[in-house]
């Protein structure tokens, strides 16, 4: 029963999508199935996580082919944590989207595609095979293309062209990197690659391959020179879609980087410097980009880029404390970014506009909702003891002990910029006097929605804010998880042993 536990999250999402496809026209069924499926997914993910926590890394060999030959699925603490976070954000977004997305979009298969996206995410987190990772990336990409274009508005299509081109380019570069790596080692299993890459004499070629991987993943993770597609496309689809994109899609790139650069390519000085420079520039440019934007969702898009910089910096510093900080930040960031985009969707529903300048008076109109949003925004900035604060301590102390003052400066600078941006947003959206907006006909304002719909929109935001609060106040437990993940990543022998020496068979 527990031997194939690793692939249960995948099977669950696959079955959900198939069931949802069978009820193509019955939107109300799809809503129920999606939300119930979300709860089941969380249960499975918690089961997987607690099992991994007690028993260590688990593997499943597809078709019972022994390790370096077949496709392996591996769940270590890192994967299990991310699967759990995917389940949490997935549930929140499916509840939010069932209320906020118009029926015309839902009729064209929004929910099945959404669950395919979650399937791809889970697959990317759980696979232990580099080509299989490419395939999961493509599943994520195809689903996200459909989600980003569904509805076919002008801005959406323009954003989609840019999103599409750069992501395809990223995949092609990733595929090229796999080709070179296969040519060098003759293996695709990540644990096996880890052993074989260490033996290669020609270090120049290894570095080039590593850079190809860095560029491929960098496009997905939206790091400094490669992020231009993100702010152009993330604000165009409905905010529920942006929520899952902002929360999880870029993080898959970060996950892949953390995995590949700790397991396969142990960074030498050249790679570490490259990663650190990228992290520095990402922190600065994302923050400055967010400062000048007026569209609320574009501000949040730039904040995604800025905060990716923290995780890359953690990887670049390459000490156990720094990686633990990066993991903690990843956990915090997935929850908070999903929440942010849902909040922007909620504000859009209330106000009917995305422009910060024409908003105002939200606090006097809706004090309770404003209080809720305030908690989420404070967590984002990292006011102690909320969740954004703790990972920054780890990152700062790691960069202090590495005596890397550039990164110390960039981390502090990015925190301040985030604070400035959030206070600007707060002052303009919540405290400024109300700006009279022209009423939009046929627009479903928030106060016109039914109570069920409203609770479906507020509910996930409350839920994710509670998770954020838990991450903040239960920081000790999260720190334990991230330290253990960092330990497993830095001492990758355990991962390799679990994959290659396992004699576990199917019963």
């Amino acid at each position, binding site marked *: 029963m527990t031997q194939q536990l690793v692939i249960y999250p995948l099977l669950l999402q696959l079955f959900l999508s198939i069931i949802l496809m069978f009820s193509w026209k019955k939107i109300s069924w799809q809503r129920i199935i999606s939300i119930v499926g979300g709860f089941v997914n969380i249960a499975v993910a918690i089961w997987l996580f607690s099992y991994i926590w007690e028993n260590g890394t688990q593997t499943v060999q597809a078709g019972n082919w022994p390790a370096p030959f077949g496709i392996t699925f591996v769940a270590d603490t890192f994967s299990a944590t991310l699967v759990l976070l995917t389940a949490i954000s997935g549930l929140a977004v499916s509840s939010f989207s069932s209320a906020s997305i118009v029926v015309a979009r839902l009729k064209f298969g929004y929910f099945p595609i959404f669950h395919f996206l979650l399937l791809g995410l889970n697959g990317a987190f759980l696979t232990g095979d580099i*080509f299989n990772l*490419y*395939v999961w990336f*493509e599943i994520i*990409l*195809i689903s996200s*293309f459909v989600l980003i*274009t569904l509805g*076919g*508005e*002008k*801005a959406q*299509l*323009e*954003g*989609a*062209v*840019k999103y*599409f*081109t750069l992501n*395809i*380019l990223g995949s*092609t570069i990733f*595929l*090229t990197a*796999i*080709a*070179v790596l*296969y*040519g060098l080692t*003759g293996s*695709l299993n990540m644990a096996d690659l880890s052993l074989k890459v260490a033996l290669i004499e020609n270090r120049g070629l290894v570095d080039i391959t590593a850079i190809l991987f860095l560029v491929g993943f960098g496009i997905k993770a939206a790091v400094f020179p490669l992020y231009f597609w993100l702010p*152009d496309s993330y*604000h*165009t689809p409905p905010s529920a879609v942006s929520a899952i994109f902002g929360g999880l899609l870029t993080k898959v790139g970060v996950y892949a980087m953390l995995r590949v650069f700790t397991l396969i390519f142990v960074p030498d000085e050249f790679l570490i410097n490259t990663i650190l420079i990228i992290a520095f520039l990402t922190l600065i440019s994302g923050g400055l980009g967010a400062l000048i934007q*007026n*569209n609320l969702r574009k501000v949040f898009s730039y904040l995604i880029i800025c905060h990716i910089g923290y995780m890359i910096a953690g990887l670049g510093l390459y000490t156990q404390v720094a990686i633990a900080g990066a993991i903690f930040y990843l956990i915090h960031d997935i929850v908070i970014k999903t929440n942010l985009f849902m909040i922007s969707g909620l504000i859009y529903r209330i106000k009917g506009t*995305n*422009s910060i300048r024409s908003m105002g008076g939200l606090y006097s109109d809706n004090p309770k909702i404003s209080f809720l949003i305030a908690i989420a925004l404070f967590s984002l900035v990292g006011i102690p003891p909320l969740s954004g604060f703790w990972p920054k301590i780890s990152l700062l102390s790691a960069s202090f002990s590495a005596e890397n003052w550039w990164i110390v400066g960039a981390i502090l600078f990015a925190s301040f910029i985030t604070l400035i941006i959030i206070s600007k947003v707060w002052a303009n959206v919540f405290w400024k006097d109300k700006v009279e907006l022209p009423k939009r006909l046929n627009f479903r304002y928030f106060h016109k929605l039914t109570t069920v719909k409203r609770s479906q929109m507020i509910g996930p935001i409350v839920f994710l804010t509670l998770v954020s609060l838990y991450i903040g106040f239960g920081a000790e437990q999260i720190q334990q998880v991230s330290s253990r993940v960092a330990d497993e990543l830095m001492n990758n022998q355990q991962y390799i042993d679990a994959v290659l020496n396992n004699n576990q068979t199917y019963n």
Partner: protein
Amino acid sequence: MAIIIGVLYAAGIYMILRRSLVKLILGIIILGNGANLLIFLLGGITKGSPPIIPGDSNVFLSAYADPVPQALILTAIVISFGLQSFAIILIKRAYQVVKTDDLDEMNEIDQDS
């Protein structure tokens, strides 16, 4: 073979850098083909020796063609085929809605809103 791959990569990237949407898609297709051929080449081409173990032995007797790159290319071709058909529909829709195939004119979302 190596030269062909180089030419395909160069042509693909050149086409992607053009402003026209159609050339963009062509560039992506060419680049994808280049990547597929690269896997094929780097997998090591062996002529005329299929990876079949003779009935009277348990191991391979001579050098054999590695089947893995072919499986990889097949997967990659299928994936890129799907993506390309999606891309063609996407540019058709984008052309109909935006009324231009020039990427420089697709800048409405950059305007302040």
